[in-house]
């Protein structure tokens, strides 16, 4: 098992390298110039000032010519492997620190959404399977399709209009009410409810469909028939035998879901002004804050790789037939 994990970690390294090269190239080649952008409106600025700032950021060579992108990448990666992702061009603080500061907000949102997905998605899937073909099943299935098809930002805005503007029952933006203590848990729960639910919708849809299929699969197995034949009560057949087995494959669905949560939060954080990694990275991408974009993408990529790793390990643990090669 240890070699298996080690091997998987080693595989992850070239993946992360690949991602970093790709993102680096894309951000640098996209039109726009961060220094021009930041100095826009500074009417006294001279061309020499601009060139000086560019040099300071390593965008040009000392002789004023544009620095080769490959060389810029080498500059960046040399420091990045040592944990130094550079300083944010806008905030003048280490990019990684700025993002790590925001990680708790994103993780809170993702965790809350994950819990909602499990709490709502699993029962819906099981109920749909047990009531297969009835109107309940149909309703759940339609809901699943909608949850998948409708963009989350749109649902987010809809929720804000209904619950914040019309009924004024939930706050529309941010982590907590201005002036409240950061440990005001009820206030925080009120704030997280809407974004977490909207973020969890796709997952709920996914989970309920997935679990419906799995449950249907399992209840047609021989051992369920045997359990029934033994004279076990319906309840113990369902919970003790069927559901337990149906849940095993769900473990594998957890990995990609984590990734979806981290990725999806980029949009949701924007809509609800949730001060997390997603919102910050998005703002950085808009303002061409290269070090922050790189650090943000690398964090997301690492989380993704990590979630697949966890899935693989969990899979290997749950199903001994998976052999470590």
């Amino acid at each position, binding site marked *: 098992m240890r070699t298996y994990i080690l091997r998987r970690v080693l595989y992850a390294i070239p993946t992360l390298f690949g991602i970093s090269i790709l993102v680096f190239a894309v951000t640098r080649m*996209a*039109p*726009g*110039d961060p220094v*021009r*952008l*930041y*100095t*826009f*409106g*500074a*009417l*006294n*600025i*001279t*061309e020499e*000032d*601009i060139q*000086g*700032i560019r040099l*300071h950021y390593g965008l040009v060579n000392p002789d004023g010519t544009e620095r080769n992108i490959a060389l810029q990448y080498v500059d960046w990666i040399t420091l990045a492997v040592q944990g130094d992702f550079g*300083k944010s*061009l*806008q*905030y*003048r*603080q280490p990019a990684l620190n*700025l993002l790590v*500061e*925001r990680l708790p907000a994103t993780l809170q949102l993702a965790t809350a959404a994950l819990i909602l997905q499990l709490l709502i998605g699993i029962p819906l899937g099981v109920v749909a399977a047990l009531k297969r073909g009835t109107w309940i099943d149909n309703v759940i299935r339609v809901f699943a399709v909608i949850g998948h098809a409708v963009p989350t930002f749109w649902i987010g805005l809809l929720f*804000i*209009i209904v619950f*914040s*503007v019309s009924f*004024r029952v939930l*706050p*529309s*933006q*941010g*982590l907590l*009410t*201005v*002036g409240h203590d950061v440990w005001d848990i009820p206030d925080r729960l009120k704030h997280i409810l809407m974004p977490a639910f909207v973020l969890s919708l796709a997952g709920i849809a996914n989970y309920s469909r997935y679990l419906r299929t799995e449950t249907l699969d399992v209840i047609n197995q021989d051992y369920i028939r045997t359990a029934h034949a033994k004279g076990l009560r319906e309840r113990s057949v369902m919970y003790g035998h069927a559901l337990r087995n149906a849940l095993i494959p769900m473990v594998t669905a957890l990995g990609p879901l984590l990734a979806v949560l981290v990725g999806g939060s980029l949009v949701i954080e*924007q*809509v*609800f*002004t949730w*001060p*997390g990694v997603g*919102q*910050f990275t998005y*703002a950085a991408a*808009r*303002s*061409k804050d290269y070090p922050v974009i790189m650090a943000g993408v690398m964090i997301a990529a690492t989380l993704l790789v990590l979630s697949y790793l966890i899935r693989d390990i969990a899979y290997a643990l749950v199903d001994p037939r998976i052999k470590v090669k």
Partner: protein
Amino acid sequence: MTRHIWRAVTVAGLLSLIAAACAPSGPAATEQQTAAPAAAATQGPVSGGRIIVGTFVDMQRANPATSNDSGSSAVSSKIYDSLITVDPKTGEAKPWLGTWTVSSDGLTFSWTIDPKANWSDGKPITANDFLARVKMQARSKVTPNKSVFNDIEGYQDYSTGKATSISGIKVDSADPKKFTAKFTRVFCPALTSVFGSAPMPDHVFGKYTVDNDPTKNVDDAPENNAPTATSGPFKFKEWRKGDQVILVKNENYFKGAPYIDELVYKVVADTSVLAAQLKTGELTVGSINAPDLAGFQTEDRLKIYKFNQVSYTYIGWRANNPNVAFLQDKRVRQALAYGIDMSAVVRSVLLGEGTKNLQHHPSFLWAAAPEKDLNPYNYDKSKAEDLLKSAGFAKGADGVYAKDGKPLAITIVTNQGNKLRETFLQVAVEQYKQIGVKITPKVEAFEALVPKLTGGSPEIEAVIIGWTNIVEPDSFTVWHSSNAASPTKAGNNFVGYSNPEVDKLLEQGRNGPDCSQATRQKIYQQFNKILNEDQPYMFGYAPKNLLVIDGRVQGVDPGPFNAEGLWNIDKWWIKK
């Protein structure tokens, strides 16, 4: 009295940044909409409470020496006061932290700082604090404001490390509250640009700038983001990044402690969220767009302050782009001015909350030319077509004018997400079609558009964008031919305007030798008349600022030369 002069603004104006959030700007004719409770008069100001201001951008650095963005300026202007202040009603520079006299040659300013003026930690504000500001800006590697002090004697040598002191600034050895600043040439905007730069606490920041080591600078000082000593009405309390900045009242403020306890800048996603949060009471103050106004008419709890602002939105014609060489012909540009019904645009785009604009300076600034001296270019379709014909164009079978086989076709670009500008562009497409000019509309992300504008990209044929914060009339960087944007040299003269007469006027308005307002007024009025005749821009419209504030807030008194409307925030109080 504007507390702080927006950074470089001083010189001519700041480009309106942020798309959706087109910077809210100040007032002139203040109309208060909903019934202002008369009972307030009987009740005196009371202390306490919190004002929450909605903003679209987070602060980046609370150090005005190294920042230039509107989010940071909003915060730093509440915590750092300047030697002077700009009167929000007239735009005039007035004594604030200091008083001044100027030598007869106009080169030396002598300053005395108010004896009562102290930092929030009790230490006196002295000449060294102003010097600390100049020095930190000189040595910063990232500041966009480095050249603000270029005309102070010895500044550039200090900046590069050739000198270990700034020869032009002399602190009085007998009185630490006095200093003189000597310029190498007369610089008429000096008061607002140079002395509008807030002094920074030497006892906090002084250690980061080392006279004999130019590699040391203030760029990474932790106090940039968590100021410990402030001179303005507020002190810094906390910055919850991406969410809010919390300021608390400065009990030691030299003009008396503010009434309100806390001032919070809260980041919101966009204009519709801002409007919603004003209605729910989550925000106390916010600037809205005209199209959102309708939703506020029924909100009795809120007051709407409408006032003029020092900004306008225009269509700039690129005269130096060979793709649209016909724009070099003044008659074509004038035809384009006659060919659009700006009164209709003001009605449809601004819903009447603004005015048609005819010149570079706002009509209520002393530098503006009187309207009677300007051509209003009232909508006149046949005049527009006559001008095109006199320029040698003939209408083709497709209804578009052409000359030598080249049709009158122009691509107009504007920045994405600014609904007002996008609507303006749509109207322009429709109306110019009527006079036989083909407009291709294009919308581009702000961050991609900016380098193309300042870099004179051939992709730009015409642009809809705006100028804001035109307080000091010096417009050298926007209109002087030496600042024409080209691929080899960036500049804020995006349209490549070049007129020797205007160049000369701009030089006189900036470098004198006579900086008196009477002389400069003549210069800039002439300048505006020429621009009005030349039409390098179709000068577009000047929107009103629509500031929505909780009805309980008292003491609000906005003026056009203070963009935010918060210039007297220390005098605001909340009725219980």
